[in-house]
């Protein structure tokens, strides 16, 4: 039978190959099915895949020192082309000679015409602080620069001979760079190109990554510890009561995040409800009010509350169908109520725990508004620094590198989860 099919193709009644007939018959249905998912596919591509790809690209690509884009017309002009040529001809570490400064002077004229000194200087300033004004100043005076150029530049600012500056310019003369990733893990390049740690008093990102990780794990654990009994209660109550309680669990979803966070501020602040109550009943002296906000406690408390439903819902959906007879069976077989819970009930809820923990952890790793409002200085997470670089310092490449590291971390976690628990064991609802 198998020989027959292998050697001689099956045909339809009128002698056409069966396979192509089948393909033709099903093509129409396939096309229609594809048309149905097309809007979603386009939506995901445009709103999800593209921005992430753009972000990843931005983390390794910054053309501030190589290309000028005229705002409005969108006209693109290469800049710093002469100094780039000099860099290409001379190996790294070469002392900048008169030719180098001449090239730089030429480029400064272009910067002046294009009004691009600011953005070019900003790119260098990211890695070598205090250099931005050297560029704007040099560009302003570009037309007055005369040979010998080296001396002319030194007249403007003696830092122009700084080898570290030249190292940064060499790196920046190529738009592609890994330096933002180095910066994102508190590393930098020394003037001779070795990778070293940044000064102790400027190290911040590794600490924040660690803190984000620690607080996220803590919050995940707290939502689990608080949510598990709630979900169990919901799952075992008769439906009409559990539906009512479910509304209470979902209620936070229906109020704005800001409102919820602000209510925590009202409760937690040192002149707030909780402190007032403690002072009122005499548990606390007026001068010893607890500091529960503008620190990690505030972040942990508010985020645990806000993320709790994300833990309760998957747990509930896993617990609801667990037949009470499993626990009864275990009890009748001689297990104490604890053993019955731990050996029989708990293992069956693991898919829900996994889903809830993964959800809460991923959400808290990227949380931003709540820590910004109630976290003070010690309750800040890495996303607050990403926001800082997006909005205040405007160093988008560094923000992108930080975000990419965060994304990578979450993906690794997801992969680990898949290896350890199995992603098909994930139950979201």
């Amino acid at each position: 039978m198998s020989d027959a099919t292998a050697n001689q193709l099956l045909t339809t009644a009128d002698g056409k190959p069966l396979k192509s007939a089948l393909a033709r018959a099903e093509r129409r249905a396939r096309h229609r099915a594809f048309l149905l998912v097309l809007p979603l596919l386009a939506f995901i591509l445009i709103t999800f895949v593209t921005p992430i790809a753009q972000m990843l690209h931005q983390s390794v690509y910054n053309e501030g020192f190589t290309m000028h884009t005229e705002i409005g017309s969108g006209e693109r002009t290469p800049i710093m082309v002469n100094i780039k040529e000099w860099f290409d001809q001379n190996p790294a570490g070469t002392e900048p000679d008169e030719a180098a400064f001449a090239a730089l002077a030429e480029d400064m004229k272009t910067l002046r015409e294009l009004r691009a000194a600011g953005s070019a200087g900003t790119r260098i300033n990211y890695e070598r602080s205090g250099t931005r004004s050297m560029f704007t100043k040099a560009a302003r005076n570009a037309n007055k620069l005369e040979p010998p150029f080296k001396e002319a530049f030194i007249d403007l600012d003696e830092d122009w001979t700084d080898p570290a500056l030249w190292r940064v310019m060499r790196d920046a003369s190529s738009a592609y760079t890994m330096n933002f990733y180095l910066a994102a893990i508190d590393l930098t390049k020394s003037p001779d190109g070795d990778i070293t740690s940044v000064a102790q008093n400027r190290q911040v990102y590794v600490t924040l990554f660690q803190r984000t990780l620690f607080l996220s794990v803590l919050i995940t654990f707290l939502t689990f510890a608080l949510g598990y009994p709630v979900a169990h209660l919901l799952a075992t109550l008769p439906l009409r009561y559990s539906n009512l309680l479910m509304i209470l669990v979902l209620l936070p979803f229906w109020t704005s995040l800001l409102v919820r966070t602000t209510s925590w501020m009202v409760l937690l602040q040192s002149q707030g409800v909780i402190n007032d109550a403690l002072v009122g009943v005499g548990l606390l002296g007026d001068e010893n009010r607890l500091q529960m906000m503008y620190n990690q406690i505030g972040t942990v408390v508010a985020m645990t509350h806000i993320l709790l439903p994300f833990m309760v819902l998957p747990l509930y959906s896993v617990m609801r169908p667990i037949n009470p007879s499993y626990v009864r069976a275990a009890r009748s077989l001689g297990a104490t109520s604890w053993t019955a819970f731990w050996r029989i009930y708990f293992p069956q809820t693991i898919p829900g725990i996994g889903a809830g923990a993964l959800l809460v952890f991923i959400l808290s790793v990227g949380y931003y508004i709540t820590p910004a409002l109630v976290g003070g200085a010690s309750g800040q997470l890495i996303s607050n620094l990403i926001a800082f670089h997006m909005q205040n310092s405007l160093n988008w490449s560094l923000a992108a590198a930080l975000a990419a590291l965060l994304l990578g971390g979450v993906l690794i976690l997801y992969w680990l989860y898949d290896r350890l628990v199995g992603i098909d064991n994930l139950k979201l609802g």
Partner: protein
Amino acid sequence: MAASQTSDAFVEFDRVQKSYDGETLVVKDLNLTMPRGEFLTMLGPSGSGKTTCLMMLAGFETATHGDIRLGGKSINNIPPHKRGIGMVFQNYALFPHMTIEENLSFPLEVRSIGKSDREAKVKRALEMVEMGSFGKRRPAQLSGGQQQRVALARALVFEPELVLMDEPLGALDKQLREKMQFEITHLAHSLGITVVYVTHDQTEALTMSDRVAVFDDGVIQQLDTPDKLYEEPMNSFVAQFIGENNTLEGVVKEIKNGVALVQLDEGEVIDCNPVNVSKAGERTRVSIRPERVEFNKARLQEGAHTLKAEVLEFIYMGDIFRTRLRVAGNDEFVVKTRNAPDQKRLQPGEHIEIGWLPEDCRALDA
């Protein structure tokens, strides 16, 4: 093993009452004693209180009033895991995250039995239910019948003296159910264990049990051996619930020499066995089993009352014939006859006369 002590009460319900809401009683004044080694079935419609009784015995429900004793000791305050009662659940309740072996090993582990001992017992229990080669599988990979056997083995593996079964065969198809009925009874008797079995299937109850307790409305209506239950139902609920039954309604005219004369509502008079009636003038419901109805006059006693009947339907069922008649205004009067070579096949529209032995016609409560 304990067959010699049959006279001792092993399981006892002493004036047990149960209420969930404090307003109505689900179980009303239950008294029941079971000797060791007995296979007792609690039979009844749903809501009759039979499962509640089982759950009180297992320890998952507490009795509102009264005493439940096991081996002479009150177990009211003993938690389920210390009662040492094996239990088989309706949905088997095999732990889905454990293999078959782990499921069986569980009751032994919580009893801190050593590993080698455990393995031997698990193996023996699986072989007992002919599931020896399935130990490494998970419950979801087994068929319903196989899961049932595993559930049975798990309830037996720690050698309990008492095993409770809550409608364990409900989810199986008919053929498998009959096979399992036989196997369970066989196992129970060969191991000498005491079994309390709950079902709403009367055939199951009759074929498996030593005794059957028929429950209705929180009360045991009759507690008897299967044959007595079928042949000598003590009230009309039991008569209706167990087996097929024809009823005719009427009033007792007189009771004489152990025979009650009953005048049916249509006017005819018949002879009956006064089971649940005591004096003339009482209303009664008369019960006759379909296979005890006779329409061959030659086989009836001299002077027996007969009734006129019209054949409405004749159904050929292979081993038996089932004939539906109109008798004294009752259109659902059924007669069952054996498919024998000389057996007459009645035709619809035929008018015949039927009768029966007075002891087969039981006058019960109305």
